[in-house]
């Protein structure tokens, strides 16, 4: 059978800085044109690509693959590796710079949940609008309307404008529409990162069903576990190049061992969040520093033992005075699974009042019961219930194998250790 998706020497080049149109006013272009033509004149027209010219970056470089009908493929890579660019080309949002892709079948792409939702329209109206935007006909939406509503579990709110929806409800409505698309090729970006766990499971289940019915899915997620569970095949992107292709499990192992493990060395107790790499464009660099100390208050330089205490100092800046701010620290395994989430608004006696400017918030976690291994520490700043800054890979924490239970046995299986008692009757 002919492959459904074939990519040949696919490359995409971006002009650096071109994504900031505010600097790209007509005056700058005119001035730049004038300056370069003057320079060319002065140098006797010999100037080719000089340093004052635009700088280019290859977001994708010579990527080749081909997928058969029924393949469920996970695309894995760190932020900025080219995953989104690849999906954007496959979804026809942007053209490749070189190479081509051949797609056989009707494509639906889901780079965002609820694309085209308008806050002033009701749930019912948005179901139709979103469905048609995603490629369904009006008649199709009409015939699946009841199913969509049932899947979303939002019967009671159908005639409420979606601006009054919680973010969870918004995602549910958006995914409910998307889940009823009927394409031969489905392209899904990190859309499941939002929404509650139960609904995420439901969506993954729906995608699993979809894959079993012989259709092709391309799936991007940071949650490597989800990729392994859902996909049979996997590709790994690294700095715009395809560095691994194979079954999903080997791709995940390759990624965890070769890419994500070597990205950052563990060890230093202090992380500069200000200059952290891979901050997504929607976030402001307001988190400035994360420091880790052990129970005795000494900097946490190397590994720590299972069940030791830890203190995380999160430094950040409040641009405007606020009483409703929250720091979050997540401990994430290298497969992208959040193992433990600490949030300052879990503190019951939190009565910090209005603050502004530079802040330091300290999180004390006694006896952190993680099993041995390496963990990625994420930091986030939330103001008025909205995440304003988020650093995905703030630093690494290594838990060394140690005799937690005092029996000479080193626990390694599972996510956490816990006191337990056993009796034989």
């Amino acid at each position, binding site marked *: 059978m002919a492959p459904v998706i074939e990519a040949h020497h696919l490359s995409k080049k971006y002009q650096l800085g071109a994504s900031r149109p505010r600097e790209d006013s007509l005056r700058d272009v005119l001035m730049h044109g004038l300056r370069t033509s003057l320079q060319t004149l002065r140098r006797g027209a010999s100037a080719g690509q000089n340093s004052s010219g635009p700088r280019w970056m290859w977001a994708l470089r010579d990527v080749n693959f081909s997928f058969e009908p029924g393949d469920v493929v996970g695309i894995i890579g760190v932020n900025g590796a080219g995953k989104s660019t690849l999906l954007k080309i496959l979804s026809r949002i942007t053209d490749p710079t070189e190479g081509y892709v*051949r797609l056989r079948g009707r494509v639906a792409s889901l780079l965002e949940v609820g694309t085209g939702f308008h806050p002033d329209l009701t749930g019912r109206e948005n179901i139709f609008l979103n469905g048609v935007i995603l490629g369904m*006909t009006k008649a199709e939406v009409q015939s699946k309307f009841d199913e969509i509503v049932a899947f979303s579990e939002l019967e009671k709110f159908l005639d409420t404008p979606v601006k009054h929806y919680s973010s969870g409800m918004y995602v549910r409505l958006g995914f409910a529409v998307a889940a009823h698309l009927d394409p031969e090729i489905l392209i899904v970006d990190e859309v499941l990162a939002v929404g509650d766990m139960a609904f995420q499971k439901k969506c993954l289940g729906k995608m699993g069903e979809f894959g079993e019915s012989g259709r092709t899915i391309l799936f991007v997620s940071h949650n490597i576990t989800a990729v392994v569970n859902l996909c049979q095949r996997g590709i790994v992107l690294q700095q715009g190049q395809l560095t691994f292709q194979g079954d999903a499990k080997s791709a995940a192992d390759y990624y965890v061992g070769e890419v994500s493990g070597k990205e950052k060395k563990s060890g230093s107790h202090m992380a500069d969040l200000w200059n952290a790499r891979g901050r997504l464009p929607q976030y402001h660099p307001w988190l400035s520093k994360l420091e880790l100390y052990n129970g005795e208050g000494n900097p946490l330089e190397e590994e720590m033992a299972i069940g030791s205490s830890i203190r995380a100092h999160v430094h950040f800046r409040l641009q405007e005075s606020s009483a409703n701010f929250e720091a979050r620290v997540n401990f994430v395994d290298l497969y992208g699974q959040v193992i433990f989430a600490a949030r300052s608004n879990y503190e019951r006696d939190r009565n910090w009042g209005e603050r502004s400017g530079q802040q330091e918030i300290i999180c004390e976690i006694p006896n952190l019961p993680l099993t041995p291994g390496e963990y990625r520490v994420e930091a986030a700043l939330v103001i008025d219930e909205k995440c304003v800054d988020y650093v995905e890979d703030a630093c690494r924490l290594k838990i060394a194998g140690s005799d937690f239970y005092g029996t000479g046995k080193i626990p390694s299986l599972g996510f956490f250790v816990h006191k337990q008692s056993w009796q034989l009757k």
Partner: protein
Amino acid sequence: MKSSAELLLRPHTGWQPIDLREIYQSRELFGFLVWRDIKIRYKQTILGGLWAVFQPLTAMLVFTLFFNRLAGIQTDGPPYPLFAFSGLVLWTFFANSVSLSSNSLVGNQGLVSKIYFPRVFIPLASIGALMLDLVIGILLVFAMMIYYRWPVVPGALLIPVYVLGTLLAASGLGLILSALNVSFRDVKYAVPFFIQMGLFVSPVIYPLNYIPARYKLLLGFNPMSGMIVGFRHSMLGGSTDWALVMASLATSVFLFVSGLFIFRRMERRFADII
């Protein structure tokens, strides 16, 4: 769409014609985008549809007072309020179409960067939504004619022609300006200014005979001058300057066709730079 659809995604360069087949296939989406724009406008404003008539009506009152009563501008026949209003209805539609459509792509960043469909739908849908206002406005002109006991003439059958000419000109400009606005946000500031100037270089508030004969053909480069003159005469009677109407129609068609090509050429970069 057939399941055997095969799609080749490759770099595009140079000038390309618009893909009419694709536009026809997704016509339902166009309808929904128009419907969305109308719906939102009615939900977000208290006056809703009344804005369609409020704008040209107020302008008519102000112009009647200042240009007719104080400055003494006379019409070529009909009472000044009727004269001004008939011109303003078409002009307001044109002005609102150009300004709304030129901001439409930037205002729909989410759609541009997250999903594919024919991009021309975005500026064109914002104009389509304004058609409702235009229809209400035209009905109001007829209502005013009844009030002034002004006879309806058979020329009224030509109204669709002038509406189409206006639509083509507004769409052409809207396509070009919305595409430019993606790279150069200057457009946002320039458009209101030029629209304001446009009102005075089009025969909206004064009749054509105020323009010296030797400049009349120059007016043909302004698509709206011929459309307004023709539209007004088709409703209120009087002899139309057909040469001017034809020149303006030609300009409108030219604007529309070049708008389609320019938009098509620039749309490839929208998602990368918006």
